[in-house]
């Protein structure tokens, strides 16, 4: 896109028009259909090359179905039946545990979700602040951007234990890890977005004798929003990854990271529990992504779709 592109008027439909209520319903429907398709393929593969089927959807099969082929990756240990994973949500999380797996994982998702949301917010604010600084100071940009890039190449597994030492074994240190993964896309997109206005738009502001704050608030920031939302969507999922990964080496209890570690050790006796945990983690990421998308639709209402998400 040219520098002028963001502000030059274009005849395009506004973002919201393309994503009206009917279109949203269609989106949900196609998601459900694709999910069902995946389940069918999953079970189809097991039907052809999995372990013998003694039951189907809880109904006994007599005689059992013996698949013609046998592929290791498709046996019940490596790829449990979809209904077994679903059923695991209703069974006790561990032997003698009064709570079901569903309840335990919901609690864990809320715990991790809190770290992710707080981390996302902190990371987004910090990332945007950095972008604002860089846009106003070429010197600082040149001096600090290499460090910003380097920060993302350091494995979070190495950093997380140090953060816990500094901040303590709290969910806040997990949020910090999450923020660490969140801020980078926001900074990069922020620099791009804040510098996207037409140079003549900045000259107009100059002719109104608008100070840097006026330029930032009235021109740069609104122009950057489509770019920022693209970054927020990347960051929303990254913040969940950051929170889960942040929990694992720190041994913080109560979240999905800990649940993954625990059910990993119990994989032989109950592989469906780990699969269920993975599903919940994915759902948490989708939930945060959807929340950002919804905010984007509301905030960018009435605009032309200047940036492809």
């Amino acid at each position, binding site marked *: 896109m040219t520098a002028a592109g963001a502000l030059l008027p274009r005849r395009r439909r506004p973002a919201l028009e393309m994503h009206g209520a009917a279109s949203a319903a269609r989106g949900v429907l196609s998601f459900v259909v694709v999910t069902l398709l995946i389940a069918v393929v999953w079970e189809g593969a097991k039907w052809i090359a999995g372990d013998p089927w003694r039951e189907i959807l809880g109904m006994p099969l007599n005689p059992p179905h013996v698949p013609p082929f046998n592929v290791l990756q498709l046996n019940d240990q490596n790829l449990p039946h979809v209904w077994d994973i679903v059923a695991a949500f209703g069974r006790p999380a561990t032997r003698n545990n009064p709570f079901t797996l569903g309840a335990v994982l919901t609690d864990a998702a809320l715990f991790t979700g809190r770290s992710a949301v707080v981390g996302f917010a902190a990371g987004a604010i910090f990332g945007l602040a950095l972008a604002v600084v860089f846009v106003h100071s070429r010197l600082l940009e040149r001096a600090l951007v290499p460090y910003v890039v380097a920060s993302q190449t350091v494995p979070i597994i190495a950093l997380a234990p140090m953060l816990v030492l500094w901040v303590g074994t709290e969910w806040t240190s997990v949020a910090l890890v999450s923020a660490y993964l969140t801020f980078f896309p926001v900074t990069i997109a922020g620099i791009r977005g804040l510098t996207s206005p037409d140079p003549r738009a900045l000259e107009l502001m100059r002719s109104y004798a*608008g100070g840097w704050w006026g330029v930032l608030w009235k021109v740069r920031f609104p122009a950057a929003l489509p770019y920022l939302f693209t970054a927020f969507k990347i960051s929303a999922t990254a913040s969940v990854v950051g929170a889960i990964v942040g929990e694992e080496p720190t041994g913080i209890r109560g979240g999905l990271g800990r649940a993954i570690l625990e059910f990993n050790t119990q994989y032989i006796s109950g592989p469906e529990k780990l699969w269920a945990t993975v599903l919940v983690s994915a759902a948490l990421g989708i939930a945060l992504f959807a929340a950002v998308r919804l905010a984007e639709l509301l905030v960018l209402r009435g605009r032309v779709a200047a940036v492809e998400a």
Partner: protein
Amino acid sequence: MSARLPADVGSVGVSGASPVASAGSSASGADRQIVAVRGVQKRFSIGGDTTLALEEVDLRVEAGEFVSLIGPSGCGKSTLLRIIGDLTAPSAGSVEVNGKPAHRARHDRDYGIVFQAPVLFDWRTIDSNVQLPLEIVGTPRRERAQRASEMLALVELSDFRRHHPWQLSGGMQQRAAIARALVLEPRLLLMDEPFGALDEMTRERMNDELLRIWERTGTTVIFVTHSIPEAVFLSSRVVIMSPRPGRITRIIPIDLPRPRDDATRETPRYFELVTEVREALRGGELRQPAQGKAADEAAGRLGT
């Protein structure tokens, strides 16, 4: 409408003048000279090569005048406009606007600018685009709405105030840009080929409208254009500029009676003046358009 005298025209814009905009706008005799360009030079350095874009330009513009700058590509007319508007600094010489240095005048918001592209903000409605300069100045919300609606009425866009820029035609967008430039009631309106991107029919209609707006607001206009008929139709004086190094070769007063309309475009005097401007442009300098244009564009970028 009678022939217009600059100082005595009742203006829509003057109602509710903001303290900032009215600073230094007392119309005493000395203030009749609104722009004074003295010995302005502009040099650009591009990759070690220094180009002289403007050489010793002197220009006086009186309050209420409509002055066009015309010349081949690369003659520095846009650069001169940008220097007057303090968007770029001259290499030598001085510019006074309203008796103040250009820099001071810019901070006092003494002028409005219209570019060739409307540069409206997509995320704002037309109404809110026009209000933007008032927001910067800190005008209270209610007065903002009032002034914006006056300006939109002036450019006949009242029915489109809730539209977004991309829902309007090019001509309408440019009218909105003019309304925005006028909303601070500037004493000087700087226009850089504002209708250059429009088709001929729309351009003529916009010319009619611009004259009507100019007559109603009493603003002084400096207007950069490529179009000889446009310059003659609009102006009180046409300033002819030569290609690089740009300087003023002739100033042709346009004595067509006002108000001007479609009939004006068919009078013999109009054709005479168009011919005179054309010949003045042709006379003298060797033309070097391609090279000049590239340098002019580079110069414009450097000046940002």
